[in-house]
C-alpha cells in the first residue's frame, strides 16, 4: 500500500444530486486503519447514497474518493480489490450453491478456487452445514450471512456495510457484531449504517450523523453514553419527521 497519510478511506468534498434534489453536499470523511465508522441518519438522509458512492457504484457530481491511496476514478480496479461491500441485496445467485457462489466471486477477485478459504469463511459465519444448498432456498437471515461471507472473501482492507443487521436473529446479530469488531481489530477500516444505534455504537469507534445533506456530528463512541445517545437519537429522529 502506498499511503500518503494513514487514511485508508478518504472522501473529499463529495456532492451528489438526483436530478434537482441534492442528497449530499460537500461531504468530507476520512478513516484510518482499524477505525470503524458508524453513519447515523434518518431515512432518506443519504446514508446509502454515501455508501454507494464510496463503493464506486454511484458517480458523485463532484469531489474525489480514494481507497487505500487508489483513486476510485483513476484506479478503479485496484481500489475495488480493497473493498468489501454488504448492501441491501445479498448479491448472490439463487441458482448456485453456497460454496459455488463464493468460488465464483473468488475467481472474480483473482483468488482462484480457494476452497480452504471458502470453507473457513463458511465456518465463521455459521453456514458450513449449508455448503451444498442452493442460495435460493436460504432464509433471509442465512442469505445475509452469505452476503457477509461474500464481502469478506478477498480479505478487503475496507468494509462497507449498509444495514448489515436486517433479517438477522438476536444470536446472529451478536455473532455478526463480533465478526465486524474482529475485522476492525485486525486493522480493517469499516463504514457502517444501521438503524440500531446501540449496535452501531458497539461495533464502531466513531459515530457521524448525516443530516440535511451534511455531516453534523462526529465523535468517538468511547466518550458517548450509548443508552443516552440512542434515546436522544430516537427523539431527534421523531422531531425531524
Amino acid at each position, binding site marked *: 500500500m502506498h499511503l500518503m497519510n494513514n487514511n485508508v478511506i478518504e472522501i473529499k468534498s463529495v456532492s451528489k444530486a438526483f436530478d434537482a434534489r441534492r442528497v449530499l453536499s460537500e461531504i468530507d470523511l476520512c478513516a484510518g486503519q482499524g477505525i470503524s465508522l458508524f453513519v447515523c441518519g434518518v431515512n432518506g438522509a443519504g446514508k446509502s447514497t454515501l455508501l*454507494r458512492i464510496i*463503493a*464506486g*457504484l*454511484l*458517480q458523485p457530481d463532484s469531489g474525489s474518493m480514494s481507497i487505500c491511496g487508489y483513486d476510485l476514478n483513476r484506479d*478503479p*480496479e*485496484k481500489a*475495488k*480489490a480493497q*473493498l468489501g*461491500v454488504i*448492501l*441491501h*441485496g*445479498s*448479491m*448472490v*445467485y*439463487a*441458482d*448456485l450453491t453456497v460454496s*459455488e457462489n463464493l468460488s*465464483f*466471486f473468488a*475467481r*472474480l*477477485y*483473482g483468488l482462484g478456487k480457494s476452497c480452504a478459504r471458502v470453507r473457513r469463511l463458511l465456518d465463521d459465519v455459521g453456514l458450513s452445514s449449508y455448503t451444498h444448498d442452493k442460495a435460493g432456498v436460504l432464509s433471509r437471515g442465512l*442469505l445475509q450471512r452469505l452476503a457477509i461471507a*461474500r464481502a469478506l472473501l478477498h480479505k478487503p482492507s475496507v468494509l462497507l456495510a449498509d444495514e448489515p443487521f436486517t433479517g438477522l436473529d438476536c444470536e446472529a446479530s451478536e455473532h455478526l457484531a463480533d465478526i465486524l469488531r474482529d475485522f476492525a481489530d485486525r486493522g480493517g477500516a469499516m463504514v457502517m449504517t444501521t438503524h440500531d444505534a446501540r449496535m452501531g455504537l458497539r461495533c464502531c469507534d466513531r459515530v457521524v450523523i448525516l443530516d440535511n445533506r451534511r455531516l453534523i456530528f462526529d465523535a468517538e463512541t468511547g466518550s458517548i453514553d450509548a443508552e443516552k445517545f440512542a434515546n436522544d437519537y430516537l427523539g431527534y429522529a421523531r422531531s425531524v419527521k
Partner: protein
Amino acid sequence: MRFFWSTLSAIFVKDIVTELRSRQVLPTMIVLGMLIVWVLRMASEAILTSKAVMGPVALWISFLFSGLLVQERSFAAEQQHDCIYGLLLAPIDQGTIYLSKLLANTAMLCIFEIIIVPVVLVAFRLGPDTRWPALAGVLLLGNIGISSVGTLFSAVVRVSRARSSLLSVLVLVVLMPMMIPATFALLTVFGAVPETLQGTGALSFIGSFNAAVGYMIAFDAVFVVACWLLFGFAIKE
C-alpha cells in the same frame, strides 16, 4: 491477461450453469421458435411452391424473436438479489462483463439453432443438400449480430418497467440493416436465389453470397467493438 480469461470464463460458466439449472429461457425460446415456424408453415400452405423462400424466412423470424428472450434474460437475471452490483464491485473491467455475457448469449442461441434448424428443414421439406458449413456460418454471424447489440441494450433496459418490449424495439431497429444481407445469404444457402444476382432479380437482390457474408462480418465487428466500448456508460447507475 490471464486474469482477464479467468474472469471471462468464470462469468460465462456461471451464466450457462444458472441457465441450465433454472431453465428460465431455453425451453421457452425453443417452444416459441417452434410455434412461429408452425404458424408460418400453416400460412405458407397456399404458396408451398415457394417453400424454399418461406423456410429461411421462418428460420429468421423464429430466431429473431426467440433471440430477444435470451438477450433480455442476460441482465434481468442479474437484477435478482442485486447480483449486478456484485459484478460491478469486483475488480474487473466492465468490458469483461460485456464480453462474457455476449459469449453466453451467443452460446445459448447456438443451442437454440441446433434444435430449430432440423425443425425448419422438416417442416418445409427442405433438402439437406444444403451447404452445412455455409448455413452454420451465416447463423453464427447472425447470432453474434443480435447478441452484440442485444447484450448492450439488455443492460440498458434492465431498470425499465417495459423491459422486453423496449428491448425488442431497440434491438430490431438497430439490427434492420443486417437483416437485408442476412436474409439474402440464407436464401442463397437454401438455393432459393442464384449465387450471384445482377440487376433486378426475381427476389430483388443484387450482390453475391460472399458479399453478404462479408457485410455480416463487418456489421458484427463494428457492433461488438462499439458496444464493448460503450458498455461502461450503459451499465453504470
